[in-house]
Structures are given as structure tokens and as C-alpha cells.
């Protein structure tokens, strides 16, 4: 078949493969197969995508209820009216989730460190931290918002804030700190004990080893899952509507009720997608970069 000697039984390609000249030297044929395969795969992906979505679109547009759905959900004039008004209130959502995210970063770290404390002396603190994560991962976020948002102001304690936004931020912080604490903890546990041994052998205290050696490496490793949790938090900022505070979702609901049209909800969905997709791509990019770095290191 080819010029190079083959010690074993000759490997023969199936006859009649398209695009492969059996007379080509071995190396070229191999690269032709790979290149041809990659090009063909791209084409198949494009064609199947176009076909799939065309069929889906045709089916939807020709369905009996489509004119009604288009009227109630995809009204262009309604969209143009609602969009800027919802964006104006969405600033509150941004304020709520940004504040909550900053607080979560700190509180979750505190809980994760508590849970990682070694030795029998710290058993009560570990238990407390474990109970915290169990509780706030177990209760639905909307319930925590309702309970804190209506319950805390109802106490009428002097000095306790009455603001909906304040308690919404507290509720989101409490719930998401439970998730992010687990993410941090996974990161802390992924650091090899030899790193701690090296730090302690140099005379660094347990706290210094944690602060300078373990946590910086752990945080770097968990940035992608942490950002994923933040995307969840951003979406859950819409739950603040249950307290009667006019953030973006409640604004959309009001416009929708006034105009008897669901397009404002679609407008809000567009806003959420517009802010979360770039973050999701950023996470993908971080993961890919980390993988590239690891591979580069292994080859060294």
C-alpha cells in the first residue's frame, strides 16, 4: 500500500472512502482524513442546526394558537414601551445582587474556614457552620425572603431596618453564602496536604498557612463554580418582587397587568439573558484557560 515497512499484517482501509486517494503517502493521507473529517463535521453541525430550527419555527408559526401567542407575548410596540421602564427598575436588581455578592464572598469564606478548622476543640464551630449550610440550602430562597422581609420588620425592634431591599439582600446573602461556602470548602480540601506541610515546616502558623498558602490556591480553583452560583443569585434577585418592592419583575408584572399583555415578561427575560450569557461565556473561558495551563505544565 505505502512506502513504509509494516511489521504486522497490513492494515487495509475500507474501499471507496470519499475524498481519500489511496495512492497518497501515509502521512498526507492521515492529515487529509483528519482535516476532511473536521470540515465535514462543521458542515453537518451547521446543516443539522439550520434544519432543526427551521422545522421548529415552521411548526410553531403554523400552530393554531400562534397568532394569539404572538399578540400577547411578542408585541413589538409593547416591547418598545416596556423595555426602558423595566431596565430603569432593573438597576435595583443590579444593586441588590451586587451588594449580596460582595457580602457572600466574605460570609461564605468565613463559614468555609470555620468548617475546615481541625481538632476536637473546634467541633462546636464546625457543627454550627454545617448546620448553617444545611439550613439555608434546605429552605427555598423565596421562603427565606418572605420570612425575613415580613418577619424582621414586624419585630419592630429599635434600630432594625425596615427596608424591603435591606432584608432581601440579607436573605439572598444568607442563602447563597451556604452554597458558596461549600464551593470554597471543596477548593480548600482540593489543596494537597503537602502544601500545608511545606508551609508549617517553615514555621508559619496554622492561620498563616491558611491565609498565604491554602486560600489563595483554593479560591483560584473555585472561581468558575463560584461565578455559576453568582449567576443563580442574580436571577433570584427577581424573587424580591414577593415583598412588594417594585424591582424589575414587579414592574414587568404591573405593565403586563395594565396592558393585558405578556410581552413585558419577555422583555425582562431578554435583560436577564443579556447579562448572564457573557458571564457564562467568561466562566467557560476561565475553565478552558485553566485546562490549557495545566496541559502546558504537564508537557514541561
Amino acid at each position, binding site marked *: 500500500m505505502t512506502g513504509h515497512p509494516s511489521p504486522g499484517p497490513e492494515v487495509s482501509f475500507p474501499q471507496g472512502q470519499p475524498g481519500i486517494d489511496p495512492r497518497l503517502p501515509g502521512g498526507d493521507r492521515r492529515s487529509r482524513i483528519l482535516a476532511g473529517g473536521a470540515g465535514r463535521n462543521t458542515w453537518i453541525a451547521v446543516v443539522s442546526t439550520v434544519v432543526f430550527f427551521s422545522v421548529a419555527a415552521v411548526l410553531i408559526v403554523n400552530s393554531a394558537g400562534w397568532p394569539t401567542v404572538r399578540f400577547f407575548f411578542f408585541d413589538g410596540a409593547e416591547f418598545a414601551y416596556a423595555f426602558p421602564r423595566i431596565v430603569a427598575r432593573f438597576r435595583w436588581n443590579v444593586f441588590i445582587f451586587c451588594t449580596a455578592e460582595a457580602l457572600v464572598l466574605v460570609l461564605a469564606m468565613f463559614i468555609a474556614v470555620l468548617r475546615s478548622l481541625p481538632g476536637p476543640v473546634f467541633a462546636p464551630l464546625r457543627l454550627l457552620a454545617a448546620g448553617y449550610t444545611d439550613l439555608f440550602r434546605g429552605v427555598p430562597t423565596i421562603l427565606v425572603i418572605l420570612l425575613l422581609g415580613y418577619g424582621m420588620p414586624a419585630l419592630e425592634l429599635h434600630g432594625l431596618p425596615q427596608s424591603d431591599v435591606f432584608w432581601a439582600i440579607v436573605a439572598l446573602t444568607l442563602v447563597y453564602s451556604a452554597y458558596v461556602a461549600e464551593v470554597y470548602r471543596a477548593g480548600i480540601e482540593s489543596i494537597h496536604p*503537602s502544601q500545608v*506541610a511545606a508551609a508549617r515546616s*517553615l*514555621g*508559619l502558623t496554622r492561620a*498563616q498557612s491558611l491565609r498565604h498558602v491554602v486560600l*489563595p*490556591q483554593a479560591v483560584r480553583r473555585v472561581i468558575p463554580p463560584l461565578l455559576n452560583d453568582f449567576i443563580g443569585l442574580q436571577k433570584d434577585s427577581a424573587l424580591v418582587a414577593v415583598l412588594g418592592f417594585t424591582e424589575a419583575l414587579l414592574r414587568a408584572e404591573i405593565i403586563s397587568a395594565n396592558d393585558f399583555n405578556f410581552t413585558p415578561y419577555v422583555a425582562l427575560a431578554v435583560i436577564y439573558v443579556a447579562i448572564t450569557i457573557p458571564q457564562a461565556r467568561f466562566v467557560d473561558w476561565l475553565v478552558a484557560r485553566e485546562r490549557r495551563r495545566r496541559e502546558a505544565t504537564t508537557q*514541561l
Partner: protein
Amino acid sequence: MTEAIRIEGLRKSFGPLEVLRGIDLAVDDHEVVCLIGASGSGKSTLLRCIDLLEPVDAGRIWIEGVEITAAGVDENAVRRRIGIVFQAFNLFPHMTVMRNVTLAQEKALGRPAADARANAHELLTRFGLADKADDYPDRLSGGQQQRVAIARALAMEPDVLLLDEVTSALDPVLVAEVLDTIRGLATTGMTMVIATHEMGFARDVAHRVAFLEEGRILEQGDPGTMFTDPHEDATRRFLDRIIAAGRM
């Protein structure tokens, strides 16, 4: 001569496995002692116990005449005076070479940052690593990483340096550069306890060689006697296996 390290009746178990079964060893100041023996004979555990990285079950250890296994001893203060270099280097991958060497000087010894840097620069220059100061460890070869680890330990100006099979994770061609570094240290009078499988190196550099088997020091003596005319059959069998494996 005064004693740098004194160990009496040291015992250590991991669960049901007794790794050290009564170790007695004394190391003088400026002495280089090589620990030899098969894998699992307890060399690494012994070194980790001396640095208090493993709690000991029984027995006592003194460093420069001060008992470090006594109750109420400040473990961090003890570890500052003992340097250890690990088989897998254990550099901090998120810090530059320079930061690896300055971190503990600043945080554990309280040295001003400028002094720590100057000290680190001097050590790195001595080990031929001055141009690597701003690189991260993953850009360095294994031999370079291990020399950084030695510099990091020496930066603390320890009373004794423990070396735990520091060349076992290295490519054969990189072993020599690390061994040369250690030879250099021996000539400066550094007190060292070296667990190693490099018998040729042990014969060159050691003032005394101790053979460990099953958690005990079976035999010790000057390298000339140990490698040519050991008393114990077990030592002879071990050395025969090493020779058969082409490692000596």
C-alpha cells in the same frame, strides 16, 4: 562538639502499622548523617517526626539541647529552627520563586521585606537561580524547583536541615545538580540528616551512615565501613540488592 539532634526511643504508628519502633540517634553539630534503607523502612517518617510534622507516639527529641517533644513547646518556633526539603519539592505554585523564599522570612521570622529579598537573592544567586526569581515554579525544571526548595529552607537559617529523598522525583540528568548543591552545603558545615537512595552520594558526603530496617536503626557507622564491611546481614543484603539494581 555539641549535639544538634538527640533522639531517644522514638515510636510512631499509623493506625495498626508501627513505622518507627524505637529510634535512638544523635547527630553532632556540622555532621552529615545519611539514612539508608528500603522504602517503608521509616526514613521519611523519622524526618517528619523531627520537624514535628507528625505527632510522635513515644520517645523524646532534643534540638540543640532543648527538648522539642516536651509539653507546651511552641511547635512553630521549633519548625523555624529546622529546615526540611521534600521529595516532591512542595513549592507554592501560586507564588514566584522569590516569594516562595521570602514568605516565611517575613511572616515567621518578622524580617523586613527588603532584608528577606536581599537574603533570598543571595541564596538564589548561590544556587544559580538568580534569573528565575520572578518565574513561577511550573516554569522551572525539577532540579531547579528542588534547588529553590533548598533555598527556601535555608533562608530561615535553620540549625539543622532535613532532606527527604530530595532526588527521587527527579530525572536522572537533573539529580547531579541537586546533589552538587547539597555537597556544597556539607562543606559549609550545615548539619544535615539526609534520607537517600543515592548510595554513591551517601558515601561521598556522609560523615555517618545509618541503616534503617522495619522502623529501627539496625546499624550505623562511617561510610567506609558501612558500604564495604557492614556487620549486619540485613545491611549486606540491602547493599547487595542496591548493587544488583545498578544504583551503586
